[in-house]
């Protein structure tokens, strides 16, 4: 009887559920400002990249995003991500002193590819931020991740972030996506 109450889930659904849970846990770490634990979710050889986006004619959209190696908002390896966290820990990072209040909403999780220990997943996100009395910023976009499974745990081997903004409607990008 217990088996009939717990029908087997298709493996693809199970994987998506696992990745969603991973993303929800990650979002909770960020919103709780547990940055060191957040860093541990990345592999040592990770790449964290947010290109610049431009308004282009529909027949020139291949140039919509800046290319790897050119200008970018984030183009970080693990050491650079760690440096950003260290900066926040100094207490002198004025853009985050007093700290922002963030809420990461993650949705539309899709498994694009799954080959053994490497999973390519896309998700939509909405990062809502308020600062000081009433400064409010919203960032919405797509994250395309390569997740690596090792020792049973998922880690982020690459995160490419595509914002739905060309001119950023915020005074800075002092938070993590």
């Amino acid at each position, binding site marked *: 009887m217990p088996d009939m109450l717990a029908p087997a889930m298709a493996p693809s659904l199970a994987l998506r559920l696992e990745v969603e849970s991973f993303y929800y846990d990650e979002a909770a770490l960020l919103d709780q400002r547990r940055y060191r634990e957040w860093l541990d979710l990345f592999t040592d050889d990770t790449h964290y990249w947010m290109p610049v986006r431009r308004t282009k004619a529909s027949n020139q959209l291949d140039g919509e995003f800046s290319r790897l190696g050119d*200008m970018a908002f984030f183009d970080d390896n693990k050491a650079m991500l760690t440096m950003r966290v260290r900066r926040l820990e100094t207490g002198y990072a004025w*853009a985050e002193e007093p700290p922002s209040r963030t809420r990461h909403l993650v949705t539309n999780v899709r498994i694009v590819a799954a080959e053994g220990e490497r999973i390519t997943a896309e998700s939509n996100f909405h990062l809502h931020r308020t600062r000081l009395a009433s400064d409010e910023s919203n960032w919405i976009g797509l994250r395309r991740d390569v997740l690596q499974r090792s020792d049973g745990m998922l880690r982020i081997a690459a995160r490419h972030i595509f914002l739905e903004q060309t001119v950023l409607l915020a005074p800075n990008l002092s938070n993590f996506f």
Partner: protein
Amino acid sequence: MQNAASIDYRSLVDARAGTVDRRIFSDAEIYRAEMERIFARCWNFMCHESQIPQAGDFFLNFIGEDSVIAVRDRKGGIGVFLNSCRHRGNAVCRAESGRVKSFLCTYHGWTYDLEGKLVGVPGYKGFYHEALERDKWGLIAARVESYKGFVFATMDPEAPALDDYLGEVGRVGLSMAAAHGDVAVVDGVQKNVLGCNWKLAVDNLFDWYHVQISHASAPMSGYLPKLPYKDEDQIVSLGEYGHAISGPRSTPEMREAAARASSEVPLFDERWRDTPEALAALGPVGVASRGSPERRRASVQRMNHTFGPAGMLEQDDGENWSQSTLATRSPVARRHPLNYSMNLGRGHIAETQPGLPSIETHINEHAQLWTYRAWADWMTAADWPALKRDHAMPAGAV
């Protein structure tokens, strides 16, 4: 505040006392007057030639609040035009960069060529009876000149030639970015919105006083080495019309120290320029390669990490400027002037290099005060001839 024409701008900047009235950073009438008296008259930087290499390549920018298009024409020249159809004013270009064969207005189909000429008017025969003088209704063109590939545009026919306008200080400033003559711009412009007056951002460029506090998190986290320049060894160069350069004196020893202090690519490492390999590599290929693809990648990454809205330095500037601007609007705060009195009266200008009046001193606020004085000149002058007649010259002590 009163009507723009009746404002006594010179009373808002007191060079003797070293004070600047807060209202110039948020008064609506003054802002509108700045659009006319500064942006519509000066030479405005548009883009670099390497961004629009082929015929039809274009790049959108602003002159004050006017949207303008910088475009490479069929003869290889560069034009800058108001991005506004002459018929009903619609934008004729909405992508921020790209390549086109012509500019089509999406409203009624008026079409302009790459030289801004009106070449297509639907109904020209049937509706206009050929009475419309097309050559009088092309896109409004700016005057365009460039210096070492940096393209500038002015909407004022009475503005002096770019070279004269820049003067030695302007030319030296641009030459610092184009030291070997052949420059290519890395693709991608970071854009974001800040709630601050434009003059506060300009102010900050000359400001080496704020670095140790505003950017304290950079050396504290280990991102930057303890900054290797000397607070006691600064140079300020002042040019007519408000140009200025301000910062630490750069010596080979300092560059060496900066390079040694960091095992990654340091922020201001320029040793590569002096190596035979770099000089051989630079040649006609251009400086864009910076000697090797790895070197280029590392340099660009370093810039991305440091500057821009996610930059380790620049994140914190935004807070300072926005909060400062807010306090120029509140009713009581705006009655009290800002203080620009650092080293006042002690900055003796000497022309040790011809055409480059300079002050050699420690950390100071001379360049800022100089530009606010020039601001008052620009705002007071009714036109270019008046500005030429009546503007501060860099001499004596600031």
